[in-house]
């Protein structure tokens, strides 16, 4: 059964990694893998004893994550229809007074900020078309706008619990693992406290380098600048009432996230509450709103949760964890080394194989690593020292998503949009930007993790 489970796990991950080559959508592969796991490994290991096959899905998939994603999708789609995001993108272009570099800087900051609170794919879907328009009006090559925008989206998403799927996964799992460990939290506020500072640092460095690299390369005429100033951002808002109602509900939802650990309500419940409120308050066509939910993404998560649960059940992930622990060595001597190793391995592997798939598989490995290093406390709780490895995983997976075109979902979405507009972003073109950004941000994160360990868990 171990061989069978390992084969299902590896084949599913390979199918996901090579979805374009084998022409099988990654969601279909994840669902197929999950069904095979349920019929073999998870059945054999008694993981679903006393449960029907139907409730097995519920048992193995993390529905806090699924509902959090679904709820945010509904909220953002409803808000999107008001035109507010298009307004923001056009406003950035106009604030830059039609000058390419200031426009790019503002678009990057806006993308990062929006990504922190919306999912990255939605953000780039909103920003990329306006960016292409701005580049066309300025008669500039849009690639130096689009690739940095992808990178900014992945960087910005790192800042919050809801910004990037790896953070949602780390937050949900780590909250449960550290539930009995005092002074350790992986709630929305903790993510803001721990992740935002490094994101701000990385963003400042990133935007500065981009400005330096592109200075002098983007010259436009007064007429072209004037065309940008002709854009009427106010007209982009198609429904003011919906915009204000949507923004208020978004604010209420974000406040709910900030308070969720105090009021003991899971983020998934808060997101769905916000979604329900949005549907009621905007009198939205529910059928149409739900049709816009990215079901493909949700089912990908559900399938992958089960595949990873199967792999955990046969112990291959904990085995990998213990092997990694052996390689790293004595935990007391490597208080700094463990999170740094996690950060870099996560960064590179997430970039190579897609950060969501990687994070899901990495979580049980990190748990095993933590147990190997620090053992379980008297209450069975994971010791506080293991906390830094989870933050390192979140940073590594999110920053690593920038490494290659397949590192994160937003990368492929923008590449596809560029292609549809006759602008090819090849692997080579992408890597010129992605590689230095990913390694640069991982380097800055290394220093940040060391400071985190130094101040939080001194040995």
């Amino acid at each position, binding site marked *: 059964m171990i061989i069978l489970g390992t084969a299902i796990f590896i084949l599913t991950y390979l199918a996901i990694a090579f979805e374009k080559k084998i022409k099988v959508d990654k969601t279909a592969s994840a669902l197929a893998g999950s069904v095979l796991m349920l019929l073999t490994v998870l059945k054999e290991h008694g993981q679903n004893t006393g449960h029907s096959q139907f409730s097995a899905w519920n048992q193995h998939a993390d529905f806090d994550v699924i509902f959090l994603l679904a709820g945010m999708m509904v909220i953002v789609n409803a808000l*999107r*229809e008001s*035109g507010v995001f*298009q307004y923001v993108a*056009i406003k950035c272009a106009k604030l830059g007074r039609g000058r390419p570099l200031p426009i790019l800087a503002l678009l990057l900051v806006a993308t990062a900020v929006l990504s922190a609170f919306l999912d990255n794919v939605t953000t780039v*879907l909103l920003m*990329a*078309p*306006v960016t*292409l*328009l701005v580049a*066309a*009006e300025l008669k500039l090559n849009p690639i130096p706008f689009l690739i940095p925008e992808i990178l900014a989206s992945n960087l910005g998403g790192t800042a919050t619990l809801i910004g990037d799927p790896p953070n949602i996964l780390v937050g949900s799992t780590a909250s449960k693992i550290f539930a009995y460990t005092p002074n350790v939290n992986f709630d929305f506020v903790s993510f803001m406290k721990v992740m935002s500072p490094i994101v701000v640092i990385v963003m400042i460095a990133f935007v500065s380098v981009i400005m330096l690299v592109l200075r002098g390369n983007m010259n436009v005429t007064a007429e072209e600048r004037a*065309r940008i100033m*002709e*854009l*009427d*951002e*106010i*007209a*982009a808002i*198609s429904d003011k009432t919906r915009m204000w109602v949507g923004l208020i509900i978004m604010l209420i939802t974000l406040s709910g996230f900030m308070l969720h650990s105090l009021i003991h309500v899971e983020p998934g419940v808060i997101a769905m509450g916000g979604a329900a409120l949005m549907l009621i308050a905007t009198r939205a066509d529910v059928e149409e709103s739900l049709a816009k939910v990215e079901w493909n993404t949700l089912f990908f998560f559900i399938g992958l949760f089960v595949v990873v649960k199967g792999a955990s059940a046969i112990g291959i992930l904990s085995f990998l964890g213990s092997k990694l622990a052996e390689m790293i060595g004595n935990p007391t001597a490597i208080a700094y080394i463990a999170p740094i190793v996690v950060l870099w391995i996560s960064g590179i592997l997430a970039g190579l194989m897609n950060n969501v798939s990687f994070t899901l598989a990495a979580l049980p490995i990190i748990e095993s690593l933590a147990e190997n290093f620090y053992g379980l406390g008297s209450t069975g709780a994971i010791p506080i020292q293991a906390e830094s490895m989870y933050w390192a995983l979140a940073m590594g997976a999110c920053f690593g998503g920038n490494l290659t075109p397949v590192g994160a979902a937003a990368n492929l979405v923008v590449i596809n*949009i560029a292609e*549809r*507009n006759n602008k090819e972003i090849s692997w080579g073109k992408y890597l010129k930007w992605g590689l230095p950004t990913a390694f640069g941000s991982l380097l800055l994160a290394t220093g940040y993790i060391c400071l985190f360990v130094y101040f939080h868990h001194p040995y």
Partner: protein
Amino acid sequence: MKLSNFISNQFVLTGASAKTLEGGKNQLVELFAKHTEYNTTDIIDAMTARENLGSTIIAPGIAFPHIRESFLKDFYVIIGCFPEGLPAKDHTEPVKLVVFYLVPEGKSNLYLRVMAAITRLLSKPDGIEKLIQQKSSNSLIDYIKKNDIPVGEIVTARDIMNTNYTFLESKATLREAADMFVSTNTADICVTDDSGNFLGTVTTGRLLKVGIPDYLLMMDNLSFLKTFEPFQDLLKKEQSMNVIDILKTDTPAFQPDTPMIQVAGKLVDGHNEFGVVLDGKKLIGTITKLDFIHKVVRV
């Protein structure tokens, strides 16, 4: 059921003549009124009202006037042959054959089936000429009997399709397509290969899309954009791009014997305005939603 069973020799006028098409049609109305209890004025009023909606000349030299009225108790077909021709307004070729259909409410399907059978009769080699040259009503009925045209049990795609469609070959340029859209005033043009096999359709939407960048179509709202000039790309590419490059390949396709309900269902449910009728792969006709309105809803 045979076509000859629907045509009574008392409702056939052969070797007739009149100065105008209107005059010819009035002769048919009088013939009909003479053998029935219906009032000539009622019939002419109904026919005029229908004519006001559009010409009923379906092909050069042939007119199919028709009325659908609740006062009609049965379905009637009246045939008038005018060998010398009837001058018709806006048509260069005089009308030599007038087939007048009087349809009671609820008999639209029968009308379509009979009309399709008559069309099949006329499409035989020299079918129109032979019919027009008949010397008497009895010989005309005999001619129809001899040809043994069946009236189908159900209305099929063949019965409602347009055979007078426009098409382009796959090598045609976008410019040719644009010209054809303008000259024919249609929104869909069929595209075929050299052998007449159907490949797909080119639509006005697809043509215009060439001139609008994809990123603009991704935006929810373009009201913020006032100075952007679309279609520059289209004007640049209209001679270098072929219709095959913008081909729509999911146009609903039907076989000639596909029942009308299935055709209607596909066009209505699938939000398609246009379908094609194929004999194997060969294009033999087109059907639009408007055809249903013209031929079924508003007979």
